[in-house]
């Protein structure tokens, strides 16, 4: 067994884990962070994407012990209380999800993408989320979501006011 000390979504944990345990298994099975999902076993689908020290990683390709001393952010820690992250809001407004299974990973990947490139064009979004597979949406509304989020996150952009019945779709 190996010891891992890690901060996940703002909470400190210290655990004994099997050295072979993947970060995603640690998150789901030990910490109950079931918002992060597993979609494949070859690091292709990206459903398990989280942030490790601010960078998006597929948590199925990181050992839990490799996260020792690190800070992990999952989909469950992305919103500030009731305040959704702009990427989360945009996925809702642009219908960027259907079954929701790829969504946690897709959102975490998109947040990282926008950190690197705050104003990506369509091509850059498509290339940027290439490592995350979605079987429902055909990606079109995911691309719109990421670009809408980029607009919301621009310096000086005001958060859209909450409409009682937001009508999305252009």
């Amino acid at each position, binding site marked *: 067994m190996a010891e891992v000390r890690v901060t996940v979504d703002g909470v400190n944990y210290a655990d004994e884990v*099997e050295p072979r345990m993947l970060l995603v*298994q640690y998150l*789901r099975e030990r910490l109950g*962070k*079931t*918002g*992060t*999902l*597993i*979609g*494949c*076993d*070859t690091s*292709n*689908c990206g*459903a398990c994407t989280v942030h490790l020290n601010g960078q998006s990683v597929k948590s199925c390709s990181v050992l839990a012990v490799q996260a020792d001393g690190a800070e992990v952010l*999952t*989909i*469950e820690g*992305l*919103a500030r209380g009731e305040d*959704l992250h702009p990427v*989360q809001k945009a*996925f*809702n*407004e642009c*219908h960027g*999800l*259907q*079954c*929701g*299974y*790829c*969504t*946690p990973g897709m*959102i975490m990947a998109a947040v990282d993408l926008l950190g690197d490139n705050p104003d990506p064009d*369509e091509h850059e*979004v*498509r*290339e940027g*989320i*290439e*490592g*995350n*597979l*979605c*079987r*429902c*949406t*055909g*990606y*079109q*509304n*995911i*691309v719109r979501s990421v670009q809408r989020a980029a607009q919301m996150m621009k310096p000086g952009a005001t958060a859209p006011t909450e409409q*009682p*019945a937001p*009508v*999305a*779709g252009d």
Partner: protein
Amino acid sequence: MTAIADTTALEFGRSRTRKEDARLITGRTRYTDSITPAGTIYLHVVRSPIAHATITGVEASAARSAPGVFGVYTAAELGATEIGLPHVWPLTPAEKAPQRPLLASDTVHFAGEGVAIVLARSAAEARDAADLVEVDYEPLDPVLDMEAAVADGANLVHPSLGSNISDVWVFDAGAAGTGGSVDEAIAAAEADPDSVVVRRRFRQQRLIPAFMEPRSAVVDPTGEQIVFYSATQVPHVLRTMTAVTLGIPESKLRVVAPDVGGGFGGKLSVTPEEMLCVLAAQKTGKPVKWTETRSESLLAAHHGRDQLQDITITAKKDGTVTGLDVRLLADMGAYLELVGPGVPVLGAFMFNAIYKIPAYKFTCTTVLTSKTPTGAYRGAGRPEATFAIERIMDELAVELGRDPLELRKQNWIPHEEFPFTTVVGLTYDSGNYEQATDRAVELFDYAGLRREQEERRARGDRVQLGIGISTFTEMCGLAPSRVLGSLSYGAGGWEAASVRMLATGKVEVVTGSSGHGQGHETAFSQIVADQLGVPFEDIEILHGDTQVSPKGLDTYGSRSLVVGGIAIVNASKKVVEKATKIAAHLLEAAEEDIEFANGTFTVRGTGQGKAIQEIAYAAFTAHDYPEGIEPSLDSDAVYDPENFSYPHGTHLAAMEVDTETGRVQLRHYVCVDDIGNVVNPLIAEGQVHGGLAQGIAQALFEEANYDDQGTLVNGTFVDYTLPSAADLPGFTTEIVSTPATSNPLGVKGVGEAGTIASTPAIVNGVIDAIRHLGVTEVEMPTTSQRVWRAIQAAQGRSTQETPIDTHSPGAGLGSIDPNNPQGEV
């Protein structure tokens, strides 16, 4: 007085953002694998790596003594050798149906079939122990090729059946009296110099549904009812079939489909793993969980498509189609899936598509092979049919020297002729092919692209342009129960709903149609908001748990809205009827003087009224209500449709093909779909997008490849190539609406349209780009290698032969051909 929002604006037709998203975008989800009752035991399946073999021994002592292992069981050790999985769609009484065991005992019939199970304290320990189970196999020759399988003297998948032909199902319009004899039509055309006969063979490759959430089941036997969570599309079917299969009283089973991460037909099944979880939970008295790996999912969850289609079309030289003959070989795999043989047969009624075809015959031979069983996959029978008819309409256009769009227009049912009874006896209630086509042509700039195509051809450009057309229709809303009965299906096609007005004026709606990503909760809430005049936010849609929603037939075949939605409308109307009686009593008016609009009951001609929420509270307190009625507004409805619905549309694809490398690029895609009235355009558009991606992926990227030993060689997401965002362009989609007349909402369904329509549009476009080089056919997926080979062959240039009988070369992006790993040509 309850506060009432302004409900005068209709919810129907609004692009509401989805109410279910709030959980899904924050990780507050409950997919089956996230459910772990205390004391859960993990089940892992030991699977055969060999397609066809005799099992000569199972040695499990090392596994049994491994840490954390509760037990290792074969079918015999579970007492399960006599249990067969259900198959509810026998085509004819003569069908040869091998019993599918939960675990193979003597012989394995496809690679991936289970042989034993391991139960352990953790998933990791179960997998570790499974590796210690040693199974001895004596290999047998696998049956892999359908044509060889049906030939005389073929090696048999199941020798006891005496044949690999499971069944032959025929629909002959001449014999049925719904149309003419196609044999006569073909004979007449062959004898007539003013007619043509075009024959083509098309291949529908084998696909894998590849839902993002791997299948999972958790069975908790610790209560009075066994609680059975499953990542399924069909909780109600699963409950009934589990009862029938395992002999458990249905009343002792509660099936829950919690959050389900996509299905696309791939979770329309009753699986061995689910049944094994129930048996293991009964045996141990503990909750048992099974979650498959992605590789297991691709290998052992049912596949889709896999047909050989021999199509003959006859026409006058003026373009009038006179007959269509369809002969299918449909690969069922090693066993008949829950609805397996019904899938190709659903296509029987769609090959004639939007056209007036006077003579028609459909013959489907279902074939057993040593491969993973096939079942429903998005569209189920209709994509195959649409592909064949839309491909051969292009071929006929070439034969006749006609523009393919003009030829279609000449033969389709003009809008003024609806309702129209087709050659298969279905009555299309409404449609307007001209409207959808005209709009698509305009958005696409059809004339401009044809000009560009001509110019590129004239210049001999390396990259050539092709225009692909698909003018499709589909039958949605499975299904009128009597029709299903006439097709020997084991159940009906109705759907159930309940609407409950709570004391506080909030509303609970129970539906038997359980969503797994489609947006049911939002769309159904919009419908009920209009029916009852209550705020959208006050409505809760309950589904996917047989304890909450005891009655239903679940979600597939674009049925949720057109069947389930109508059941909800009918239940809502009953609520209003009941409330009207109480309102009349409280307002001291005659019932016939009460009007209901926007959630308020008023006495005609007066200002007096009461909100439906007030009536709900009055019914709850029951202090003052009329004699002779019960104090409740709650209502149930079961709706059985009388007809299918028939969405249609025109899809146009601009395909670019590099004639030197074979590289195919989708430049521009336009579709205009007529799906009747639209509840929520945002959701409908999303369904079209996702459908397009899957249909396009069949045309360009995906294929389940087997080697000559019957091993699935691309059973991971590394090489079963789902398209990523970078592989697809943005689509131009539009919706036009000719309301259905067969249901009160005028809706038609949209879940499968994109998948059904897009595959032939893409392939027609690819071939159109290189037809001038002599290419008449490219098998799907139309990868660079296949297209390049087709061009070389058409130009009479030789290429080094790759043995295509063992593997489809170059399928998908990044796929490696095991017979030619370097991709040498």
